[in-house]
């Protein structure tokens, strides 16, 4: 799928898992406090299962989690 589709898929997946978070409201989801550590752990689990990827230590950094776009970039990178 292309990048836009990937972002859409991730948005749908996470919105379902974490309905209380408005993933589109910010480009600094972590900085703005919209994601707490429990949610981040959950996101890692959800993405790992959905996309069959293992998110390595090196990639568990804020910039990958600050936006849907960041998450899509991460998934894309790890799928290749």
């Amino acid at each position, binding site marked *: 799928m292309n990048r836009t589709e990937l972002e859409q898929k991730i948005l749908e997946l996470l919105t379902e898992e974490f309905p209380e978070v*408005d993933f589109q409201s910010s480009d600094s989801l972590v900085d703005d406090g919209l994601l707490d550590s429990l949610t981040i752990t959950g996101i890692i689990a959800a993405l790992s299962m959905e996309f069959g990827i293992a998110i390595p230590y090196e990639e*568990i950094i*804020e910039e990958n989690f600050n936006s849907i776009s960041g998450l899509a970039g991460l998934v894309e990178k790890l799928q290749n």
Partner: protein
Amino acid sequence: MFDTLNARIGQLAEQRPHKLAIAFKSERLTYAELRQRVLRGARILTDLGVKRGDRVMFSAVSKPEMAVTYLAIQYVGAAAVFADKAGTPENLAFIYEDTGAVLLITDKNMKEFADGCNTYSLKTFYEGTQEDPTDGQIPEYLFPEGTDLADMIYTSGTTGRPKGVMLSYRAVFNILMNTWEGVGMREDDRVLIPLPLHHSFALREMRAALYHGATVILQNGFTFAKEIENNIAEFGCTGIILVPATVGTVEKQMQERFPEIMRNFRYIEVGAGSLSIAQKLRLSRELPDTRIVNTWGSSETGGAIFLDVHRVAGDPDKISSIGVPVTNVEVKTLDSEGRDLVSSREVPGRMALKGGMEMSGYWHRSELNEETFRDGWLLTSDMVYIEDGYVFMLGRIDDIINVGGEKVSPVEVENIASQFEDMDECACVGVPDKEGILGSVPVLFVVEKRSFEDKDLTRFLSGRMEKYKLPAHYVRIQELPRNAMKKVNRRALREIWDLQEGL
């Protein structure tokens, strides 16, 4: 004797203007810059109508603007009320109303709660502190009274609605000094704080560092172990604070590189929980040159009891301790009647502390405050014993009844029993098991609506709760003893039981 952060930072801004005070990635403020921003922030707050004695709430984001906002609020003599940056609009609105705040500085979308709050953008506030105001003056700093309200931290505790913990300037000062001592912090430390800044632990660490001219490095969320490594590389961090759960997460993420990376720290403070014995042993083995401290603290007292993990690693008894109180903290134990108790493993007691670091009380909770303070001591809900100066934690007492190892909640028993048709009201307390087998057993004091037989009540209860929760005895009583605020007096019930048993 006490001092304030603003007074001290004013001095540091002159003595060490270029020393890095606080940073988050590329956002960095020296002490001089921090001071300037605080002064300008104070001006903005004054223009917004904030007055001495007001409560001002703000989102405790993990960025330098948090410190600027915090200090600016105190500078104008208002009290700082910390909001969880990840809090829901509903939670924030509750706290706003509860404290009677005049202002909420946040960029959070308050949604349907926006109308009830006077909000101001935190981003706008911070941007406003960048430039000198073109007109008007910076307000003068009035050194507060030690008893003036400085901070309010909201804690939810184990039950009910969140409560505001009121910290006076004197308490805030003592808390930061206790942390300074307990941790062994130094002026040349650069302490990494990857924990939420609305919480007592991160706050006391930040205060201790800033007061002494050390450096605070902020980080979002402790699941980002890689960020820890990045921050070590970027800032040369010498200290870090973690909670026990994070230690595990970081270990799991860093894997075999954990010792190599974490050895960079001169000290690691673990707070807001006890490390397991296995964790203590593992850390002391893997990080031989790093000072490892496990702190017992609370929002109500700050960090008060510190365990030097290396020192006790080889002692099979002391390793399970929560440590020793710092110099200015006194700890004692009380029996269930509130009398001083010389405790031991067999005879633990309720922990009480004092030392000038304790809160003034819970905001607008006079009944709770009456129960929390006695003769100048602050009572906790923790059962401990003290041996050789070391404190050993047995857990929260509250009202849990330990029936042969099984925990029974009296409130649960009461809720069920109250539904019995002939029951007017009832109260459940734990009393010693006469047979000596179970330790404690629940006893139900009942006020009858209509006279009933024990077996009928027992049959009713048996169908609705586990066997071990069933009251061992019923005591009929005319009315339940209650205190001034109409709350059932469980202690009085236990006394009635003791009298009845001829004790």
